[in-house]
C-alpha cells in the first residue's frame, strides 16, 4: 500500500511535498487511516504539516489536503467511514465558498467565520492534547511520589453497651415464677353448681312448697357453707328460680334490698 501511495497525484500537487520526508508522511497518512480518531484528528495531523501557528493556518489549503486524502483513499479502495465523507463534503462546500467572492444573498455565517471556527477547533484539540501530555508528565502518585508503604489500619472497635435495667430483670423473674399459673386452663367443675342442676332440684321440690321459703333452704347438701360452693349454688338456684317464675310456676319476693329472697308455689288462678 505504501508503494502505491507514492504515485498519488493529489499528494504531489500539494506544495512542500517534494521532500522525501514529506512524501513519507503523506504515505503514512493513508496507511494509518485506521489510526486516526475521526476526521478532526486527521485534519489536525494535516494542519501540523503546514508547520504554522494553528490560528494562522490556511484552511483552504487544509481543505484541499483533506480532499486529496479522501480522493487518494478512494483510489486505493480504502473504505473510509461515513464521517470522513461527511467532513469531505463539508470541506468541499467550505472551499467553494472561500474561493468565490462573498455572496450577499447567502445568510448565516460567512466562509471566513466557518474557517475561523474550524481553526479554533483544531487549536483547542491541539491544546487539550498538549495539556493531556503535561498532565501525564507530572509527578504522579505511584510513579514519582509515593504514599506511606505501610499504612496503619485504624482499628474500629465496637463496644456494646447492654441495656438492661432492674425492672427488666424483675419482670423476667416474675414472668418465670408465675408461668406455672398460666397452665392451660381447665375449668374445675367440682365447686360449680350448674343452672341445669338447680332447675332439676327446684322442679323436684316445688310441689312440696308451702309458704314463702328462703332461697338458702334450697341449696343442696354440702353447698351451703364454703364460700365458692355456696356462691355458685346460690347463683344457680336464683337463676333457676327466675326461669320457673317466667314459666309461671313460682313467685319470688324480696322485702328489702339484700333481704333474703323467698319463693313460693304460684297459687292456681281463681278462675
Amino acid at each position, binding site marked *: 500500500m505504501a508503494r502505491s501511495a507514492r504515485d498519488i497525484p493529489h499528494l504531489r500537487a500539494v506544495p512542500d511535498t517534494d521532500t522525501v520526508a514529506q512524501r513519507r508522511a503523506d504515505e503514512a497518512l493513508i496507511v494509518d487511516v485506521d489510526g486516526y480518531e475521526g476526521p478532526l484528528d486527521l485534519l489536525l495531523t494535516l494542519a501540523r504539516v503546514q508547520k504554522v501557528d494553528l490560528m494562522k493556518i490556511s484552511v483552504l489549503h487544509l481543505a484541499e489536503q483533506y480532499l486529496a486524502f479522501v480522493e487518494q483513499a478512494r483510489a486505493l479502495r480504502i473504505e473510509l467511514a461515513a464521517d470522513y465523507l461527511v467532513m469531505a463534503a463539508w470541506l468541499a462546500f467550505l472551499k467553494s465558498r472561500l474561493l468565490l467572492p462573498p455572496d450577499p444573498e447567502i445568510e448565516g455565517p460567512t466562509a471566513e467565520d466557518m474557517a475561523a471556527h474550524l481553526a479554533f477547533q483544531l487549536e483547542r484539540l491541539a491544546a487539550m492534547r498538549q495539556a493531556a501530555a503535561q498532565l501525564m508528565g507530572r509527578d504522579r502518585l505511584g510513579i514519582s511520589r*509515593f*504514599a*506511606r*508503604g*505501610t499504612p*496503619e*489500619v*485504624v*482499628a*474500629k*472497635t*465496637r*463496644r*456494646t*453497651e*447492654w*441495656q*438492661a*435495667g*432492674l*425492672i*427488666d*430483670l*424483675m*419482670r*423476667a*423473674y*416474675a*414472668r*418465670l*415464677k*408465675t*408461668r406455672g*399459673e*398460666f397452665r392451660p*386452663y381447665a*375449668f374445675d367443675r367440682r*365447686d*360449680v353448681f*350448674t*343452672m*341445669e342442676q338447680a332447675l332439676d332440684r327446684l322442679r323436684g321440690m316445688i310441689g312440696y312448697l308451702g309458704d314463702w321459703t328462703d332461697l338458702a333452704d334450697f341449696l343442696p347438701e354440702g353447698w351451703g357453707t*364454703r*364460700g*365458692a360452693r355456696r356462691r*355458685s349454688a346460690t*347463683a*344457680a338456684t336464683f*337463676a333457676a328460680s327466675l*326461669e320457673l317464675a317466667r314459666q309461671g310456676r313460682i313467685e319470688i319476693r324480696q322485702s328489702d334490698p339484700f333481704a333474703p329472697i323467698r319463693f313460693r308455689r304460684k297459687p292456681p288462678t281463681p278462675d
Partner: protein
Amino acid sequence: MAEQERMVEAILFASSRPLTVRDLADRLPPGCDPAEALAGLRRAYAGRGVVLERIGDGYAFRTAADLSFLMQTETVEQRRLSRAAIETLAIIAYHQPVTRAEIEEIRGVAVSRGTLDQLIEMDWVRIGRRRMTPGRPATFVVTETFLDHFGLESARDLPGLAELRAAGLLEARPPAEGLRVPLALGGEDDDMPATAPADDFFKDD
C-alpha cells in the same frame, strides 16, 4: 536536612516492610552512608508523632507508642439483652449459687452455652463454687459489676415475688375466657362478665 537523610526518609516512608542498612545501601546512590543517615533521622524524629524504630535488623517508621490510641476509633452500640439472657440472669440473681441444671429446670428450657458465655463475658455472671453433689456441677453467681450496673448493694436486695406482684410487675392474669360462670342456658345475653371478681375463685384454693 542532609540529602542522604532525605533519601533514607523517603525510602523508609514508602517501603512496605522494614529495611536493613544493606537494603538501604543497595537503593541509595554510591557513597551514601545509610547508618549515618539513620542515626540522624532517629534523632530528628525523637519525641515526634512518628518515630524511627529498629525492628529486628530493619528500620521502619512507626506511630509513637503513646499515640496508639489515635489508631482506633470506638463506637458504642446500645443493645438489649435477649429474653433468654435476661431470664437466665434473673434466675442466677435470685437463686445464686445456681447450677445450669437448676436454671434449666426453672426456665423449662435448655440454657444455651452462648447465653451463659455472654453473661460471663459481660462480667455480670461468674462461675462460683462447685456444688458438693454427684457430678460436682459448677454454680453460677452474679458479680460486683452486675450489682453496680443494677444499682444493688447485694443480690439479697432484689425484691421478692410478693413485692413484684404488689408493684404490678407480675404479668396480667390469663384471659378471662373460660372463667365464665356456667349459668348460660345458651342465650346470647347470658354471658357474664368475669374479670376481677373471678380471682376469688382461686384465692380460696
